């Protein structure tokens, strides 16, 4: 493989990582601060994509759809928090997993009832329709560059809020020791609601951003959820910085693994079995990496020290 192709694949990996970070950021906040396993994070991402797609169809504008979908997903997140999740904060993780899994099933079905089971489409905004030639015969769509920028901006903004503001201090304190924060007179429930709402909105934002390049269908949240969990476990639960680094790492491993593994296998195997073992190994690589990192650092790369 040429250096040029390797560079392009690395760029692809980073971009996929940034997309994963958009989904994982909200998840790690909710898990870290509230010690709450939210399997329904994936369906919130799906909801963002569906709302974005139908708002874009109704208004005819991607940007208007994006602006409207964000408060809509925030409201949906708060409604879910009020209806289901707040009754689970005191429960153990098993109860949370079961209940949020139930939310996945119901919301997937609800989406199917409202929008039908056929996949939807969301057009790329006209402003970002162009592309940059990467090499002869291959273009890099501007929209993907926009995802890259949006992801980096989100990461920067989150870092600023979490590390540099009073609210961020509370969030970090909550992640470390929630009962102590409550004992100091902070309304922890309001803080939880805020964090949860932001998490839902981040998931929705990721959904809208992903909709023009991915299929908007009722199962879309489930595939991304698994990778998002891998990201936050590698990064250290509750750490935004960890989620960012881990997302880039997972994106790179996943993309480079897929493009290099079959070639690597060809060094020791005949072409046909090399392709298939290469593909099989590549799809395991992320999980192998996760196991390796956990064996080395059981609390992830950037552990948030909790009591």
């Amino acid at each position: 493989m040429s250096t040029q192709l390797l560079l392009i694949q690395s760029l692809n990996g980073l971009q996929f990582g940034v997309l994963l970070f958009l989904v994982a950021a909200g998840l790690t906040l909710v898990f870290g601060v509230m010690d709450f396993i939210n399997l329904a994070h994936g369906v919130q991402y799906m909801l963002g994509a569906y709302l974005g797609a139908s708002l874009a169809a109704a208004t005819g504008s991607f940007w208007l759809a994006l602006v409207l979908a964000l408060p809509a997903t925030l409201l949906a997140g708060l409604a879910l928090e009020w209806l289901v999740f707040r009754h689970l904060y005191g429960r153990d993780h098993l109860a949370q997993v079961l209940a949020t899994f139930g939310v996945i099933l119901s919301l997937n079905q609800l989406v199917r009832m409202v929008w039908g089971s056929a996949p939807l489409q969301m057009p790329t905004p006209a402003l970002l329709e162009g592309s940059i030639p990467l090499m002869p015969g291959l273009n890099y769509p501007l929209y993907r560059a926009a995802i890259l920028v949006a992801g980096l901006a989100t990461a920067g903004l989150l870092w600023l809020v979490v590390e540099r503001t009073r609210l961020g201090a509370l969030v970090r304190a909550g992640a470390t020791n929630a009962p102590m924060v409550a004992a100091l007179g902070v309304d922890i429930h309001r803080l939880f609601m805020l964090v949860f709402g932001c998490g839902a909105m981040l998931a929705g934002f990721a959904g809208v951003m992903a909709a023009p390049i991915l299929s908007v269908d009722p199962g879309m949240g489930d595939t991304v959820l698994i990778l998002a969990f891998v990201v936050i476990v590698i990064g250290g639960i509750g750490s935004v910085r960890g989620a960012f680094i881990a997302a880039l790492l997972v994106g790179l491993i996943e993309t480079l693994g897929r493009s290099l593994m079959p070639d690597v296998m060809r060094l020791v195997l005949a072409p046909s079995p090399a392709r298939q073992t290469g593909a099989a190994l590549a799809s395991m690589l992320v999980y192998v990496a996760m196991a390796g990192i956990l064996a080395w650092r059981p609390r992830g790369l950037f552990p948030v020290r909790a009591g």
Partner: protein
Amino acid sequence: MTKFGRRGVLAGSAGALAMPWVANAQAPGVKIGLVAVQTGPAAALGTHLKDGFMQGLKHLDGKLGGLTASVVDIDDELRPEVAVTKVRTALERDKVDFVVGVVFSNILQAIIRPVTESGTILVSTNAGPSTFAGAGCNPNLFVTSYSNDQVHSVMGAAAETNGYKKVFILVPNYQAGKDAVAGFKSRFKGEVVDEVYVPLNQLDFSAELAKIAAAKPDAIFTFMPGGLGVNLVKQYRAAGLAHIPFLSTFTVDESTLPAQQDAALGFFSACPWAPNMDNAANQKFVKDFEAAHNYVPGSYAAQSYDAAMLLDSAIKKTGGNLANKDALRAAIKAADFHSVRGPFKFGTNHYPVQDFWLCKVVKRADGKYATETVRKVLENDTDPYAAQCKM
């Protein structure tokens, strides 16, 4: 809501759900168990299948061969064990006369024994695994779609006649993906520059697209069903690769086009049927289907519509006698109906002998997206396993 209120609503809706069921149970005539996946990511295919069969019944005034037809809805949930339980219930409790439908081969594989061993006739309107086409053929199984490998081999033949020398293959890493590669290669004699296998839950194809651009093939061949295909097609177009002919099977069809739209224009598919086929039966089907359901029917719908017409013709032939299975099987085998595909007959293994076409995605004058026939690739094609069937 108070406890009483909630219970009241639940009881009321349960009652409402049960009522049509009671009416069905008392109706005389012919009873069909319609197996179509209606949950999960593949539900769109089940919807096509079900709507197609129901459209057939509608055109037949709710009768099959003069007998009033009632349909027992079976959602297989794309889970073989669920399919078996539900189909058993339909056979034993509801006493269905036929089981029709089935989108996926693994579901067909799960239900074929319970259905055919009870002496009931099974009409598959989409799944066509090779397992039951050759030595494992079954007198009680009829397939109105195709043998799976056949469709992939059509694309191989089309690539060959188009004179492509170098083809890049991209498929998901599971059995059906490997079958697609084998089917394609069975008729393509040129060079396969690379075969890439991706996981079934792949989201981003940019790594593969870069490989395709670097390999500079004359065409690519791919089999990416459902959401995979939507992602691939959009990203392939956005990466500026659309000048490389996109040969595919089950990747661009009426079930995915609403999401692919312009991105899929001009992409190729192999098909036994397309909505634009010029025969009276098809024009009536497509026109009324679109009016009733507000979407363009796909092959899943067409093959199920054909199944309704097939059963109608067979029951008519036996004079409404469903008890004499030998006569019924012979009547179905005769396939004395007007298929939306035009010529249609069964081979010795009860799989169709039919023409296959190269199809292309177009935007119709009314703004809807559909596949359209480009040219006939294979005529009266029998699947490669039929010779091994002793029936």
